[in-house]
């Protein structure tokens, strides 16, 4: 596109002014773009946010159950006379409360333990940054997730300063507060350490300016007294009286030259200090906070996530077997079996259909090399031709005596003959297996979308069960005896496949050969059977 340059002053003015104009989009826009470009990575952020929420809930639950950390109740109602309330203070508490609402709205509204009380704050007559925290519960402070603000501490002794409030976007007349109580038993309110908080209340203003005081489940007689500046106590905290009969209150108030506080009366705004608790925080601010919370607290993607994928695969296959035996155990030649004929040559067998299916975790060690490990279930099957005899036949199986090491002939009965006459049937030798394949794959060639890999696996296998028809000593019959199937085995696999990347997942397909390293049967049986399967492996990969 060519930008035409006009000599016309008016049009030049338009171009210049519009070029100067900037607008800054909300975080939501980038968030949406990111999720669209990286869809596979979307759920981790949601999952991480959920994990954070759950962890914070649990931390709050544990903290609230400890003896030194009183349960916190936060109540919000719509104040009827907001104009009479100087409740613009406690920016930090407001932030905390909003944060709590964002994190655990259910817990918040249930008025049960939410989080460990944070602290009490110096009253300000107007909301502004850098509100001073009178005393902080350091444990709670440490547990607060870092969002866009820090808290200014100060004014009291032995309280560490941690910074200043920078985020004023949550300031609002309609606020939710949570505060902690103060142990005034030692009348050391001005120098209280954070660990001494053991009570918590929240203040609720009613229509007649008679607020309803509620306390936590652990509320005790210990209370705190807070005054406004009338008492000359510039470091006054918040009103948290829970027990009007507590003489400590008045003595504490007297000692501190503070106004004695009625049990729950709050009058005009110019009189006592009060908290305004509003049921509904500003919709836009809360919504913005909640919208941004997950984004700001989205943990950075870990490097391993880029390299790791989950694969589900299935391999329909055709199963074969190969029999071998020690030649010294060959039976004498007969009309059916010539001298020196091996066991494998003595049977009439056909391949059968099997299947493997499993889940793998694939990790890219290098650009062209992957390693993988997973779980897999296998079904092996092949067919043997036999004929049913008209009556049970007594035969023998050649088994090695474990004590002597010499073969013994074990008697067995069967109705299956190793013949292939007109009435021949197919009997299926099958096993059900559980494997743990471990392997690697090497990228042979490819680009971003299409890749070609070759790989191999070793698969420790547990044989859950199956059916086995064993060749008798004279090879004339089959004896059904699943007890001789080996329980543990090892398989190996080699494969090659093409991998194609879609937007959200990768499809892989290619041939695979799987070979059983040890005999299907226990070492007692003198015939060794090795299975091998040839199939096509089809897999779907999804990145973490």
């Amino acid at each position, binding site marked *: *596109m060519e930008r035409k340059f006009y000599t016309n002053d*008016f049009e030049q003015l*338009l171009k210049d002014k*519009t070029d100067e*104009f900037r607008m800054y*989009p909300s975080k939501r*826009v*980038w968030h*949406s773009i*990111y999720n669209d470009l990286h869809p596979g990575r979307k759920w981790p952020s949601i999952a991480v946010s959920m994990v954070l929420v759950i962890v914070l809930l649990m931390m709050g639950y544990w903290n609230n159950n400890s003896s030194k950390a009183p349960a916190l109740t936060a109540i919000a109602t719509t104040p009827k006379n907001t104009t009479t309330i100087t409740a613009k203070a406690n920016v930090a508490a407001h932030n905390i409360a909003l944060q709590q609402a964002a994190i655990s709205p259910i817990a918040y509204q249930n008025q049960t333990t939410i989080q460990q009380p944070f602290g009490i704050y110096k009253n300000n007559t107007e909301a502004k940054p850098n509100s001073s925290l009178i005393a902080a519960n350091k444990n709670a402070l440490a547990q607060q997730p870092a969002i866009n603000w820090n808290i200014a501490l100060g004014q009291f002794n032995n309280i560490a300063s941690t910074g200043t409030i920078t985020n004023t976007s949550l300031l609002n007349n309609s606020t939710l507060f949570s505060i902690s109580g103060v142990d005034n038993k030692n009348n050391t309110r001005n120098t209280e350490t954070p660990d001494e908080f053991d009570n918590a209340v929240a203040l609720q203003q009613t229509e007649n300016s008679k607020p309803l005081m509620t306390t936590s489940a652990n509320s005790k007689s210990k209370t705190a007294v807070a005054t406004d500046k009338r008492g000359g106590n510039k470091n006054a905290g918040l009103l948290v009286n829970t027990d009007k009969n507590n003489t400590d209150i008045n003595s504490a108030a007297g000692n501190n030259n503070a106004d004695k506080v009625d049990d729950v009366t709050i009058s005009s705004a110019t009189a006592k200090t009060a908290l305004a608790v509003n049921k509904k925080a500003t919709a836009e601010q809360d919504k913005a906070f909640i919208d941004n919370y997950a984004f700001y607290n989205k943990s950075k993607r870990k490097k391993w996530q880029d390299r790791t994928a989950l694969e589900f695969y299935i391999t329909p296959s055709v199963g074969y077997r190969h029999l071998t035996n020690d030649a010294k155990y060959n039976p004498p030649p007969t009309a059916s079996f010539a001298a020196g004929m091996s066991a494998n040559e003595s049977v009439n067998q056909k391949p059968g259909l099997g299947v493997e299916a499993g889940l793998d975790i694939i990790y890219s060690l290098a650009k062209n090399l992957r390693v993988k490990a997973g779980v897999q279930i296998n079904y092996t099957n092949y067919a043997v031709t036999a004929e049913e005899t008209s009556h049970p036949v007594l035969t023998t199986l050649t088994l090695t005596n474990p004590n002597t090491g010499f073969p013994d002939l074990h008697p067995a009965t069967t109705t299956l003959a190793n013949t292939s006459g007109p009435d021949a049937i197919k009997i299926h030798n099958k096993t059900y297996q559980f494997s743990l394949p471990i392997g690697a794959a090497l990228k042979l060639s490819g680009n971003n979308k299409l890749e070609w890999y070759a790989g191999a696996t070793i698969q420790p296998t547990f044989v859950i069960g199956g059916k086995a028809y064993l060749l008798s000593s004279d090879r004339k019959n089959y004896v059904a005896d699943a007890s001789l199937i080996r329980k543990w085995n090892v398989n190996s696999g080699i494969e090659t496949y093409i991998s194609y990347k879609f937007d959200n997942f990768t499809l892989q397909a290619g041939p695979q050969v799987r070979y059983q390293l040890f005999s299907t049967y226990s070492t007692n049986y003198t015939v060794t059977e090795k299975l091998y399967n040839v199939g096509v492996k089809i897999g779907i990969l999804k990145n973490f």
Partner: protein
Amino acid sequence: MLAGCLKNNAAAQEALYSRFSPRMLGVCYRFAKNREDAEDMLQEGFIKVFTQMHQYRNEGALEGWIRRIIVHTCINNLKKNKKFSDSLDIIHAHSVHINEELIPSIMQAKQVVECIRMLPLGYRTVLNLYAIEGFPHKEIAGMLDIEESTSRSQYTRAKAMLEEILVRKKIIQKPKERMRTASGTEG
């Protein structure tokens, strides 16, 4: 940054977005009805930028290429909701009322943009495309499915209306005054 975007690197994409999004949102804002629509256009536009990044041929500035995509996205967005027909806009233009109180009195750039946004949709779009983005009338006609003559007439009317607004807001002088000033004649 460009190489990173081609590899779908999130950090590179965010850097590119951060660099160009303020100006591009300004472009979208001139076309859109409100900020939310502008942000939607911006979002859609940048997704196209990143998915079509491999088509960028290093001919010309990257910003110009991105801007072109953003403008086309805005136009497509508008076309989903409105047909640009001359008759409709002419009728609409005669009855339009410009609420000048809504135009901010500070920041001249924002004033000018808000004045542009006050124009009827058809006028505003043609003016944006011709006077600011530099598209020829023929191309504008193709983009908006209108006649080239309609594009020219829309632009003429849009320019006149906008001039009037800007004069009333004292952002610019009247054309006659400008000429007198330029020639040194006392007004």
